[in-house]
């Protein structure tokens, strides 16, 4: 059973979340304070973290940064403010996805499942000299492994699977994030930037993940 760490200072909401998630076949750890997250994380590493933005101790954005220093575990932020720069801040701090309160429990479960999904895929993909090992979930550049979050790996793999295709942001949201209908395309922008900063030699002149102006993104073509 996957272990989900729920970080929320609202006791009732946390309890309700644990009821819903347990009902969906997950194990749940509850944390009420931001500054307690790392202790529990070290002793009982979860498969996914559900993180509220407003927390006593240290806030969700900081917690997110602390976790990212150590781990690539999927993080889904919970926010009461869908429109503010909180969302972008959270994504830039390393969150994979976010849910705006109030959300429907089915939607939350679906989103968590997408992030936990580990479909066994065989074979390696490549963009130019980048080797994407789907079995081992590794990306190797110049013989060195690059550490990517699972979401970043999925994003890169999605692009690499169909080298000629230009993906719209909406298509990526549906393939990588599992959204059923239109959502916030900032999610894609932020994660492409993060991915580039990890794999590209020069993030301003990308080779692997190319922007197609007015449409979306595509994988870089192998150099002849």
């Amino acid at each position, binding site marked *: 059973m996957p272990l989900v760490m729920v970080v929320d200072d*609202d006791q*009732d*909401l946390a309890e*309700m*979340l644990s*009821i*819903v998630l347990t*009902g969906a076949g997950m194990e749940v750890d509850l944390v009420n304070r931001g500054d307690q997250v790392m202790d529990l994380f070290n002793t009982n590493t979860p498969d996914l973290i559900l993180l509220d933005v407003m927390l006593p101790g240290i806030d969700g954005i900081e917690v997110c940064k602390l976790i990212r220093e150590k781990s690539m575990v999927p993080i889904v932020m919970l926010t*009461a*403010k869908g*429109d503010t720069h909180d969302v972008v801040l959270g994504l830039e701090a390393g969150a994979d996805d976010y849910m705006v*309160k*109030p*959300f*429907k*429990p*089915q939607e939350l479960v679906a989103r968590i499942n997408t992030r936990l999904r580990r479909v066994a895929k065989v074979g390696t993909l490549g963009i130019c000299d980048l080797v994407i090992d789907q079995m081992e979930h590794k990306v190797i550049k110049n013989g060195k492994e690059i550490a990517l979050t699972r979401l970043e790996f999925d994003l890169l793999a999605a692009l690499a699977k169909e080298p000629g295709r230009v993906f719209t942001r909406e298509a990526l949201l549906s393939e990588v994030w599992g959204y059923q209908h239109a959502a916030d395309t900032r999610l894609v922008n932020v994660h492409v930037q993060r991915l580039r900063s990890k794999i590209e030699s020069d993030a301003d002149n990308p080779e692997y993940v190319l922007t197609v102006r007015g449409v979306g993104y595509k994988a870089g073509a192998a150099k002849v």
Partner: protein
Amino acid sequence: MLLSKIKIRQSLSLKVLVTSLGFSIIIAAVIGISVHNRVATTIINEKIAISKVETANALYLAQGHFYIARFQDDSGLNKVVQDFITSSREDGSLSGRETVILPFAKSGNEQSVYQTVPTLLVLDSIPKSFREQVRQADEVLDKRVTIRYSDGKEFPGFLIGGKLNIPRTGVYEIYYLFKLDAQYQSISVITWTLFAAGLLLVLLIGLSTQFVIKQVVSPVQQAAAVAEKFTQGDLTSRMSVSSEDELASLGKSFNEMAVSIQQQIARLENLSLLQQRFVSDVSHELRTPLTTLRMAAEVIYEQKGNFDANIARSSELLINQIDRFELLLSDLLEVSRFDAEAAALGVVNFDISNLVKKTVDYLHPSKSALFEVLTPVEPIQIEGDPRRIERILRNLITNAVDHGEGKKVQVQIKTSENEVAIGVRDYGLGFNEEDAPYLFDRFWRADPSRARTSGGTGLGLSIALEDAKLHQGQLLAWGKPQQGAHFVLTLPKLHGNSVQSFPIALAPDDLVSTEN
């Protein structure tokens, strides 16, 4: 003329300048003219007086000579008289004086009659009446005359006349004619000097007025400029106060007023900001408990098969009301965003025709028979925020369905060169004309007693209007009781433009036939 009058009225400095120049010209003219007259009279009269005395002396002297010469013979006397005549003519030629000797009463000797008249002089220059007076008088007389010559020349001058008794010949009238052209010349020099001095005076007064104006008017102008800036919304503009005079106290009062206005405005802004913050905070704070509530309700709802009918139905109602509550909350939040002017447009280029079709299909798949959608075949690309435009459409269409009483709803798109219009027409209840101004008000309902059938929040049209305004578009409503309503959204095709024409008229054309 009129223009200059207006200009003078408008400018304080010009008014002061014109007034002071006018007064100084009048004063300079009065003083100049009186000084000039005084000086001119004095010069002429002095000349006359001196000439008179001199003439009297000369005549007295000549008379003396004549008396002494009486004892000589005729030729001797004649010589004395001739000498006198010659010398007085020669003297006169130097000083511009003419000598006229005319016989008046003869006695004895007829042969020696002295008469001398300058060749060109017109004898009429000496008026008859004056000659009469001279003949009667015992002393020397004077008179102002015009001296005329037969060649047409005329000079201003005066006349001094006396009598001369030449022994053995008789009594003669002797006239000296003095020309005053030299005096008039000096008077004209004085005139010009006075005129120049007057001009200079006026000029100096003008300059000094200008200087004074600068000192007085320019702070006033500055005050006016500052006040104007203040009116235009720059609440930080203040007058500079550098002295202790009346103008400084004006500046001080102005600045005090400005500070108090600024504080008042800041206080009001702060209040409204607090209120907006409060609405926004409340909306956000409600979200967490609402999340818990929703999840709990869903958990119960999923188990409804195990409950009895009442509890199952209750769980349904609970879910429905949570949906409505959520809708209300997000609308409230949107309204508070508009109030805080924090609503941002995400402008992209998209096909609005497609958006309209999609919105109609998505909203009411079960009621598709109800709709009549009239769109042009080719796509209509516009610049705008599709999320907001979709929200407007959703509001208008839902509204039309809610109030359409099951009759058809017509949605049409028309374009002009720079605008696109979307009309949503229903044939239901409509509304009274007097209700039109309140349609877009928050939580406004046409008939408060009417049952609320839809899940509308009462904020839909208000938000739609704000969304339209954000696009610089127009959202207008037409309605008649029992004849339905017509809402027309008109948007500029390019972001940043404004609406210039209306491709769809607000009054629906299907009504004209029924009215006539």
